[in-house]
């Protein structure tokens, strides 16, 4: 995990440094004087050779010091500390919503295979995984904000503000999870132990809950990690779109402003969560399915 994060930091640093321009020439109407730029460069340590800058940065990160934002003149830790709860709330809400929709939908459509419900949920799954989130957001805003005037267009704070970003962010994950749930349910229903359970006279409910569901949810649990990682990545497009004051919007703005400390810290934070999500898959898999350990 640490080596992976180190290389992520290295690549991001190299790419950000390779970018032409400097964070101080972003205002074309009022270009600052050269001596002011030099002073700022010294202040932020940008006058040193690139490799020294990187070593300095990494040793500061090891002490959990993420530097100062050039664009906002505030410690990066402050900015992330302020934005992260918003992003986390949005992400967790979306994940819970996705699970709450996807699991019942996948289970029901597998139990009622090739019925109207099944086709409906497959249609939803195709739409949800195919249509990009920002395109979906446009349709949502047109229908629910401009047309029906149910929700405000952008912003954050009240529950009304949260509905559209949460639903749209959840959509992709919900569609993906519903597809997996359905497939894995269909797989489990056809197993011999299910036939055995039925033939020994168990009630259908018991068969479905105790035998089918229990086994069908194992593959689903393992993709919740990647789905959560997808939500993390999806969040910065949604945040930019709906002007949600989370770290995602901050990140997009800092990239165009070449605000190195913010770019670095946010990338590392994202990568950390993705590595964590992928790691948790392995752990969860081992816990849910003891056969995996035996096989190893």
């Amino acid at each position: 995990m640490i080596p992976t994060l180190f290389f992520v930091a290295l690549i991001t640093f190299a790419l950000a440094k390779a970018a032409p321009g400097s964070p101080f020439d972003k205002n074309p109407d009022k270009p600052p004087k050269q001596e002011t730029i030099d002073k700022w460069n010294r202040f932020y340590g940008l006058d040193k050779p690139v490799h020294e800058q990187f070593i300095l940065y990494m040793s500061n990160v090891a002490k959990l010091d993420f530097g100062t934002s050039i664009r906002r003149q505030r410690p990066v830790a402050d900015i992330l500390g302020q934005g992260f709860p918003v992003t986390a709330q949005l992400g967790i809400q979306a994940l819970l919503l996705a699970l709450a929709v996807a699991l019942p939908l996948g289970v029901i459509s597998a139990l009622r295979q090739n019925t109207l419900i099944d086709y409906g949920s497959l249609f939803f799954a195709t739409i949800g995984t195919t249509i990009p989130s920002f395109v979906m957001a446009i349709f949502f805003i047109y229908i629910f904000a401009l047309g029906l005037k149910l929700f405000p267009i952008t912003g954050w704070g009240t529950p009304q503000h949260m509905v559209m970003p949460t639903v749209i962010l959840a959509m992709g994950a919900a569609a993906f999870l519903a597809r997996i749930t359905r497939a894995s349910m269909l797989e489990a229903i056809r197993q011999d132990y299910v036939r055995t359970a039925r033939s020994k006279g168990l009630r259908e409910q018991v068969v479905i809950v105790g035998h089918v569901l229990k086994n069908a949810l194992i593959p689903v649990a393992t993709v919740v990690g990647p789905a959560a990682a997808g939500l993390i990545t999806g969040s910065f497009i949604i945040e930019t779109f709906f002007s949600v004051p989370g770290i995602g919007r901050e990140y997009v703005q800092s990239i165009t402003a070449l605000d190195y400390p913010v770019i670095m810290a946010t990338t590392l934070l994202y990568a950390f969560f993705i590595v964590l999500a992928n790691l948790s898959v392995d752990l969860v898999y081992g816990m849910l399915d003891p056969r995996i350990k035996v096989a190893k």
Partner: protein
Amino acid sequence: MATASTTQDRAAELNVLARKQRSLWQDAAYRLFRNKAAVAGLIVIFSAFLIAILSGFIAPYSPTLIPTSPASQMEPLWTGSKYTDPRYLLGTDFLGRDILSRLIYASRVSMVVGFIPTSIVFALGVSVGLTAGYFGGWLDQLLMRFTDIVYAFPDFLFLLIIVASFRNSPFGKIMDGLLLIFVAIAIVGWVGVARLTRGQVLSLKEREFVEAARSVGATPRRLMTKHLLPNALAPLIVTAAFSVPGAILGEATLSFLGVGIIPPTPSWGGMINEGFPLFAANPWAVLLPAMCISVVMLAFTFVGDGLRDALDPRMKT
């Protein structure tokens, strides 16, 4: 009773023999063309291609033409509002440019961005994956370590950082930023293909037919190109079918965030970016490109799903 069943078996056998022989690929094509959604998708993609190629002939105006008489923010004709102009079927954008022409020209960007990076990704990914999977050793080690790192980067984040870093350099300005997007998508995408190919090769190379070919003296090169690659092709084709819309989505998202195709060259994502601040005043300037993206993405997904079901019915979900 026994004779009856043998006769039936014979009949079935004869029937099979009488049927015209089809290769595996013909079989797959047959299944693909019986899939209505996939055929619809193919038709949409084919039309989009034609529109992209013929855009110079069918677009009524230049996509970047700003008319001298102010006719900005016209709505499409069918809305019947007083802000329509019979010269502009789908209305005009905030600078008065014809939306229909811009949509038509923007299809060029999406089609090119869908196919060219995918070709680079597959040429590179398949060759590295084949070699790494077959020979193992340091190349394999390097590939695996590298993929671990790239996997920790969310695809789109990586894409965004590469494009944002180089878009102000001379390289980033070539072909209105298209070349940079090609390269960035290729850098981000090839690793996944290499890893997939490697996995396929690892499981195939222990199989009997490979051993048989090796024992009659097939060279590694022949083994890789004639035995391993054809057998690994089905999942690769399916992945390719899904990576084309992935690339289109990548470009659209970058352009939507304002770091993709350099204006005034039209792209669907860029049109959404430009129109969004005035969404409430002129929603169609945003809705129309959004619909174009949706239709093309759905078409590619249908074809991808169709290909997956046709090439490997076991993968059907």
